[in-house]
């Protein structure tokens, strides 16, 4: 261990741990400024939206497998959605749109950024709270009304937005085309408000990571989760304003008679695609970089070894984030593009394969010659590696412009994006939730049920989404209301039925997870401060940590991945453990 000179006589302002005063119920649980409570609030909100998004997916899958048959219990839907339980095409389009919207903006993004960002940044860098606790509270309380607004759009005249989660203009810009007026406007307004929530969070994360690292917590001692969240926050800060601008333009097209995107009056529909994807591709990395961080953390913990190639991992995160800005055109290969420009986008896109490969091989290197403990978080993290690579490799087909001609807007794309967002992000989220649950609630989730959840999810997830690659290559298109309407697709219908059953099973296993999540809060085994025998700072304090986190600001002596360091009895060393005599060389 190299001993760096550490300044220990920091003059800290009184942080929240000192002078701790009793706060009432409302300040503790509702309008809390404690980053851990805000993380839990985000967790509750996004799990509810995750469940809602899953329910919408169930309805879609029912229609795709059994078109024209009444939905069991579908009588509760009004006639404008599903008369007699039979899903109407316009309602189906709303389902497609809202499933994507809820999952991306209200489930995956807040789970990764809102939950883990809030929970981990202060804890892992050794800070008492975020730099701007009230801004943090505002961030959550902007997300809630945005979610309600989005939800409310189902119940207004014309129903919820039905132009796809990408809301391509002019379809989305003029209610004439979809019959949805207010629903689309609520969609736009809701995302606009949610954008402020994200920006407030991002400003906070960036400031906190730069300014509030504990003494000795140098940049290259940071856990990779923090690196990933820090870089993600920068992406959020830069990308969301672009979306906000585009949303406002679309909203004024809808309501004030402007014509940014309306071709009949000289507007340019392609402008929407450029703006949306200039935001949208960095958004893709917002949804995966934190997952990279979580997985790195947990793989090293499971293997009881330092992360392989820490420095390269950090550079890969930065490289992916940077490249994410210059690839948006690959979503628009079919939109009509100069071949030279298309080639450029194609090449920048493929280059992302290089940092991604570095990450994958470094993960394998981390496991290599490790002492692998198959904890539940580890299982999810290993599943992430095996599934993310499928999503990554299928991405190469799309990056190759001419091949994309075939698979663009088919079920191949549906398969790809679910391999990245479900097999990738969501498995990392399961890994993260099961890993940090004890830190949040002081109790462990039930391991047996968690294992059952993992095995069921892994099997049925693959059974549900892998066949979609084949369906896409056979020419089954996205946003298809009734596959049996086409004779040749009707022959492939058994696959759709199969996928739907797999999705039913997949969702059933998620119910196990939700129940385990809730019941373990009361029934779970007491976790103790460090159930995973990990190194980073959050494990040096009680679970759940008290208000203000650290009794004293910790002093950091080493990196976050000093597993199995020689000279210590245990195979882990907390980052703030003072160096022992014999370990110092």
């Amino acid at each position, binding site marked *: 261990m190299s001993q760096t000179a550490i300044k220990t006589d920091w003059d800290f302002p009184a942080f929240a741990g000192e002078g701790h005063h009793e706060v009432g119920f409302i300040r503790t649980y509702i309008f809390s400024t404690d980053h851990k409570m805000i993380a839990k609030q985000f967790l509750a909100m996004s799990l509810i939206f995750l469940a809602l998004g899953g329910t919408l997916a169930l309805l879609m899958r029912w229609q795709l497998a059994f078109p024209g048959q009444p939905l069991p219990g579908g009588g509760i839907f009004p006639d404008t959605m599903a008369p007699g339980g039979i899903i109407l*095409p316009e309602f189906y389009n709303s389902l497609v749109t809202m499933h994507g919207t809820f999952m991306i903006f209200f489930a995956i993004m807040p789970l990764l950024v809102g939950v883990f960002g809030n929970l981990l940044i202060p804890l892992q860098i050794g800070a008492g709270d975020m730099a701007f606790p009230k801004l943090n509270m505002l961030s959550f309380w902007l997300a809630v009304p945005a979610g309600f607004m989005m939800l409310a759009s189902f119940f207004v005249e014309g129903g919820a937005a039905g132009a796809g989660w990408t809301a*391509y203009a*002019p379809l989305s810009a003029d209610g004439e*085309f979809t*019959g949805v007026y207010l629903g689309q406007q609520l969609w736009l307004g809701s995302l606009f408000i949610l954008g402020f929530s994200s920006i407030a969070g991002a400003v906070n994360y960036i400031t906190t990571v730069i300014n509030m690292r504990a003494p000795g917590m140098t940049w290259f001692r940071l856990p990779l989760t923090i690196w990933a969240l820090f870089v993600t926050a920068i992406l959020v800060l830069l990308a969301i304003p672009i979306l906000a601008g585009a949303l406002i333009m679309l909203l004024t097209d809808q309501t004030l008679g402007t014509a940014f995107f309306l*071709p009949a009056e*000289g507007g340019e*529909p392609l402008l929407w695609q450029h703006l949306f994807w200039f935001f949208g591709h960095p958004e893709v990395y917002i949804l995966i970089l934190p997952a990279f961080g979580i997985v790195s953390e947990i793989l090293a913990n499971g*293997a*009881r*070894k330092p992360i392989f*190639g*820490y420095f*390269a991992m950090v550079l890969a995160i930065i490289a992916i984030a940077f490249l994410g800005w210059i690839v948006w055109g690959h979503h628009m290969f*079919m*939109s*009509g593009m100069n*071949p030279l420009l*298309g080639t450029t986008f194609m090449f920048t896109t493929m280059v992302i394969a*290089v940092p991604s490969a*570095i990450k994958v*091989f*470094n993960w394998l*290197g981390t496991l*290599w*010659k490790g002492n*692998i403990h*198959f904890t539940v978080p580890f299982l999810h993290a290993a599943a992430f*590696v*095996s599934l993310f*690579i*499928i999503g990554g490799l299928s991405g*190469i*087909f799309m990056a*190759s*412009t*001419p*091949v994309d*001609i*075939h698979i*663009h*807007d088919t079920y191949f794309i549906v398969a790809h994006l679910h391999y990245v967002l479900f097999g990738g992000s969501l498995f990392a989220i399961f890994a993260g939730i099961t890993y940090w649950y004890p830190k949040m609630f002081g109790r462990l989730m039930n391991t047996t049920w968690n294992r059952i959840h993992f095995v069921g999810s892994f099997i049925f997830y693959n059974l549900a989404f*892998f066949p979609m690659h*084949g369906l896409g*290559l*056979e*020419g*089954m*298109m996205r*946003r*298809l*209301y*009734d596959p049996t*309407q*086409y004779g*040749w697709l009707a*022959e492939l219908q058994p696959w759709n039925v199969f996928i739907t059953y797999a999705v039913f099973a997949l969702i059933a296993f998620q119910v196990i997870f939700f129940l385990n999540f809730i019941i373990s809060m009361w029934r779970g085994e007491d976790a103790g401060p460090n159930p995973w025998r990990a190194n980073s700072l959050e494990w040096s304090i009680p679970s759940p940590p008290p208000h203000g986190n650290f009794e004293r600001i910790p002093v950091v002596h080493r990196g976050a991945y000093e*597993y199995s360091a*020689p000279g210590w009895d245990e*195979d882990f060393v907390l980052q703030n453990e003072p160096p022992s005599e014999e370990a110092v060389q």
Partner: protein
Amino acid sequence: MSLLARGGAVLLLLLLAACGTEYPQNSLSPHSDFAETIHQLYVSIFWWTMFILAVVWIILAWVLVKFRAREGDEKPRQIRGHLGLEIGWTVGPALIVIAIAIPTIQAVFATQRPVSEDAMTIEVTGHRFWWEFHYPEQGITTANELVLPVDRPVNLRLGSPDVIHSFWVPKLGGKRDVNPTVAVREGEDPKYNWLFFTPQETGYFYGQCAEFCGESHAFMSMRVLVETEEDFQAWADRWRESPGALPPAGPEDPEDETELEMAGVPAQADEPDQLEIGDDDPLVAMGRDIFLNQATCLACHAIEGTSAQGDRGPNLTLFGERTTLASGILENNPENLAAWIKDPWAFKPAAAMPGVDYDMQGTAGYWPATALSDEQVRAVAAYLLSLK
């Protein structure tokens, strides 16, 4: 975790099995130069990715089994990295990327190369929710079934009056967005997307709108008939001598309000419109009268050589030759056609043609509040099917 590897192998086999069969919109059976180029690239990328997938999965599975924690294990050695290995797995993927990029770039330019001199231009218009094909050289307009001569390069000009559609015929290779034609100042040419390819085999190909365009997006299909040059010319000639054509003389007065009276007006036996059709099937004659004189079909539809010259809906010349109706979603037969005329929204919600059952209120304003009887609908269907 061997479960993982085994499950992966089974699923891979399923994928390969799915690729082997022949479905009409299969991406993997090329029938044009364009599609062939893409196919070769697809195959090379497929094997590269399978190779990488196999490497990663095998290492992962092996590592997980081999290095699992056992009783009495020593602490693992701390390995923080290995410069040689790390350079290796940076350079290796970079080389693979280049190996994929080079043929890709060649294919990009091969599929978007300059249009050859002898290419036949066809103006494709994507409507909500049907396709219009205009052949400027031949002066032909048809809908939903594109007829092409084999081995002749075609250059499709893609435009739309409403939202974004996407022209996609997998076996001929093309998919390209059909963007709305943006209004431009006078003297400027609007921008169009173009798609240029040469069909190499005669045949019957399926196509589809691939960009989400609204409620009935999924029902916006099409067919492409690739015919020999002679058959194509014969088709074009037949179109010009439209069998629905009127005799040269004879009063035509579709604008006359009285002619557009509601359905139920008895057919006038001495109307010249009814006399010139080869077969004198009375049902056909009745349908023709309804189409041209009583209902306002002709407000939107055109039949070459008749008074019907509407341009809002598909051109119905040679309709009887089409294999499908309603843009490729129904087989073209009398029953389907009658059902379609009666109630198009049952098949294609939000179609511009609201059907005879619909009240004028709440639907497209130009549709007359006409209610044809079942027999009249059958007659119209018989007339349209006689157009060949």
